[in-house]
């Protein structure tokens, strides 16, 4: 049983996209998570709803909305196309965007849960010891919330690895270009390529298992 070039391409695309998405969403997730967990401001409920929406909406719908926004005639897509001459949809970039939107609520949820559990009294204690709000964030809030942050990161990353619905809407299913593992499995099932299906399912499971197991190893003392 030999793994095919198309399967390798799908696997590496999935991992690459999940990593890229993580790099983009992680700092933003920290900021949004901190705002939601520790601050009160007008529009907080709206921001929370907006961030969480993709968790509740069927991914197909999220994907469709993205397609409308990012397409050549869409609100954002047209601007990008006219300015940079780049078409977002059906590109690798669109996979990253789709995967980011879908995984973001999971990341933020984990960060918010972790940060909400950090007692405000400890943060105030740090303030009375002379720490600025930024120092308090890096030295107290973030380290103490690390379990929630890591948990959210694992969940978000795993979600990114297996995202299907939104990806197929905005990025299509182009082998070697936008075909991720999940899409490759979908195609293989359709074409009746059972051996390929088993292989891809096995690889996906191993990758997901390894991701979670490694993180647990490094975070559990």
């Amino acid at each position: 049983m030999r793994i095919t070039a198309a399967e390798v391409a799908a696997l590496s695309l999935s991992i690459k996209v999940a990593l890229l998405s993580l790099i983009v969403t992680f700092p933003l997730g920290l900021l949004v998570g901190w705002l939601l967990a520790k601050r009160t401001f007008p529009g907080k409920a709206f921001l929370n709803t907006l961030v969480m929406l993709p968790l509740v909406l069927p991914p197909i719908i999220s994907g469709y909305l993205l397609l409308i926004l990012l397409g050549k005639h869409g609100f954002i897509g047209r601007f990008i196309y006219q300015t940079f001459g780049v078409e977002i949809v059906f590109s690798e970039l669109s996979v990253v965007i789709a995967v980011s939107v879908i995984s973001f609520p999971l990341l933020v949820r984990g960060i918010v849960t972790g940060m909400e559990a950090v007692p405000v009294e400890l943060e105030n204690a740090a303030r009375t010891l002379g720490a600025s709000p930024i120092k308090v964030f890096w030295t107290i809030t973030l380290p103490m919330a690390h379990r929630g942050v890591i948990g959210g990161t694992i969940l978000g990353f795993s979600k990114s690895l297996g995202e299907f619905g939104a990806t197929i809407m905005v990025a299509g299913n182009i082998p070697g270009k936008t075909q991720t593992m999940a899409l490759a499995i979908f195609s293989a099932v359709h074409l009746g390529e059972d051996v390929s299906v088993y292989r891809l399912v096995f690889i996906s499971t191993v990758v997901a298992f390894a991701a979670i197991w490694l993180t647990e190893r490094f975070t559990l003392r």
Partner: protein
Amino acid sequence: MADSPQIKLDFRKSLGSFTLDINCTLAAKVSAFLGPSGSGKSTLLNCISGTLAPDDGEIVFGEEVLYASAAKINLSPEKRRFGYVFQEGHLFPHLTVAQNIRYGQPKPRKSSAAIDVLEIAEFLQRYPRELSGGQRQRVAIARALAMEPRMLLMDEPLASLDSALKARIIPYLHHVKDTFDIPILYITHAFSEAMALADEAFLIANGLIIANGEPYRLLTAPSAMPIAQLTGVENTLFLPVTASDKARGLTLLEIGNQSLVIPYTDIGIGEIAPVAVRAEDIIISLEPDISISARNILKGTIQYLDVKSEYTWLSILVEWHHLAVKVTHAARKQLQLQEGSEVYCVIKASAINLLWD
């Protein structure tokens, strides 16, 4: 402490239906705010530390305005440089003791007077969860001192400790008071702690200061009674053990040049025994040579006499300890008691209780 900065507090803060309305000046080395829970003590401290903004008024430390509603000044906590010791310690659980102490230090340094005074050098490398309650509180005090604060704020630092531990921490607080040349604001609901530490106490109830003065005077002030009655009017003394006789069931404490006999305790010789005597358990005599079964006859002078309530309250100076004594008006008249009178305090050994045991 002649040029110790005065702290002027004049502000209001409403939280729901509760209003804190404070107007006072702190000039003593150790000022205590004394009041039952819910009286607004913690709100007061949070406003001073800057973690909570008052509604209006001003807070001035020496010459520096920390808060002024009119001028829209509200210094952030980190700019006020007040060391804050919390009731629950609030040590950072993910940092070692050494890292906790270093957290607020202006410049990192290996040794610190705070570490020596609170005797915590041996557990610098441990995490807070590996410490006992008393050790944690000592670290919390050391952490607040290590930041080299301009003032120390203490919010019921002993309240979360079990009874026996309190007596062990009190000497550390005295040591802090003597070593560090900064004003201390101490908040408590226990008269005994205010008596043990403070030079001036403010009684606070329902968000208002209802009396202030030296703690021993407050203990006998009628306005203090509602609060004092929560714990009873008890005289608290911290006296060294000089001798113990288990067979006869007695322990001897030193009170200046006199002795106080109490029921036997296994506190070692030379160590401090915290004891309490209720104000109504002290009998006043004008002569020392009386045939009486009570074991203690202490010589003292009436410093202060209060006749405004149902009973006469006396504050009697025995060596350098003030004892609050409650007698009837009839007894006062019969013995012709007045300020400056020399009297003898007669106390049964069994009326003296070991505090916190």
